[in-house]
C-alpha cells in the first residue's frame, strides 16, 4: 500500500531528525497489493505541511504496469509530491520529461499536474510529444 510510501518517506525524514529536516539523495519503492508500483529517487526532499507533502529536487520515478514491466520514466528538476490515501500526486510549475518504455510516446513540457491514482497527467505549457503513429501502408497487425 501507499502507506509504505508514506512510511518510507516519513521514516527517511524522521531518521534524519525532526520532521522538518531536509533529506538528501533519498530513494524508496512504492508497493500496492503486493506489487511494485513505482521506484522513486531524488536529490533534496523538504517536508511541507507535515509528512504528506514534500518539495523535491531532481525528482525521478519509474512506474510499473500490473505485469511488472516498466511503464513510464519521468523526471522533474523541482516539484512537489503529495501522498494520497492510495497513490501520489506530483505537481510543479517547472519542467517535466516523460518516456514510455515501449516507445509509444515521449513528452516534455512546463507546468504539470500528475495524479497517479487517477492515471491523469496535465501539462500546461509548451507541450512537446513524440507519438508513435502507424505508417501508411505499414504493418497493422502489431
Amino acid at each position: 500500500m501507499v502507506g509504505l510510501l508514506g512510511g518510507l518517506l516519513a521514516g527517511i525524514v524522521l531518521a534524519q531528525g525532526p520532521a522538518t529536516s531536509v533529506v538528501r539523495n533519498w530513494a524508496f519503492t512504492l508497493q500496492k497489493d503486493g506489487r511494485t508500483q513505482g521506484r522513486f529517487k531524488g536529490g533534496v526532499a523538504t517536508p511541507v505541511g507535515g509528512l504528506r507533502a514534500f518539495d523535491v529536487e531532481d525528482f525521478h520515478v519509474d512506474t510499473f504496469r500490473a505485469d511488472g514491466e516498466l511503464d513510464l520514466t519521468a523526471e522533474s528538476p523541482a516539484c512537489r509530491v503529495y501522498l494520497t490515501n492510495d497513490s501520489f500526486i506530483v505537481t510543479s510549475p517547472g519542467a517535466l520529461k516523460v518516456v514510455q518504455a515501449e516507445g509509444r510516446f515521449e513528452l516534455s513540457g512546463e507546468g504539470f499536474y500528475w495524479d497517479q491514482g487517477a492515471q491523469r497527467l496535465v501539462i500546461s505549457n509548451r507541450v512537446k510529444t513524440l507519438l508513435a503513429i502507424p505508417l501508411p501502408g505499414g504493418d497493422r497487425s502489431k
Partner: protein
Amino acid sequence: MAVGWMAGSLLAQDARAPIESDWAEMDLKGGAYHYVGNVRVNVPGLLKLTCGDLLAQPQKENNRLESLVATTNVVIEIVRLGRPGAAPVVIRAYGDKAVYTATNEVVTLSGGDTRVVAPQGTMRGTEVIYDVATGRVRATGHQVTELNPEMFRTSGLFRRTTNAPAAGGGSKP
C-alpha cells in the same frame, strides 16, 4: 537528467509524430492524448497538421494509435511522391474537423468550407474522404470540383480555331 528525451526508442514500424501544443492532457491508463491550443504535428516528408484541438485515441487491444481527431481550423498538408524524377506532390486539406483512422488509413474531412487542394484541382464538399494509402479523394453529398486548367495545356482538348484576325492583319484604308 537521465531520461533519454527523443532518444529514438519509438517503435521502428511507426512514424514519429512530433506534436506541439499549448496544453495537453494524457489519460495514462487508457492511452488517450488531448492537445489544445496551437496544435502542430509535423512528420517530415509525410504530413503536417495544424489545428486548435487534437485528440489521439489508442486501440484497446494493443494500445497503439487508433485515430486522430482534429478540430478547429484544421489544415493538413500531405506530401506524396511524384513521378520518377519529379518533385513530390503536396496536397493540402482544409476543414472544421478531420478524423484519421489508422487501421484503414483514411482521413475524413468535414465542415462548412471543406476542401482538398491538389495540383490537379480543388475538391469542395461537406464531407471529403482521402485515402492515404491509395491517394484517392472522394466526396459524399454535394460537391464541386475545380480542375486546374494547366492539366489541359498540352491535351488538345480545347484547342480550336477562332474568328480572331491574324496578328498584323487588317484592312487597308
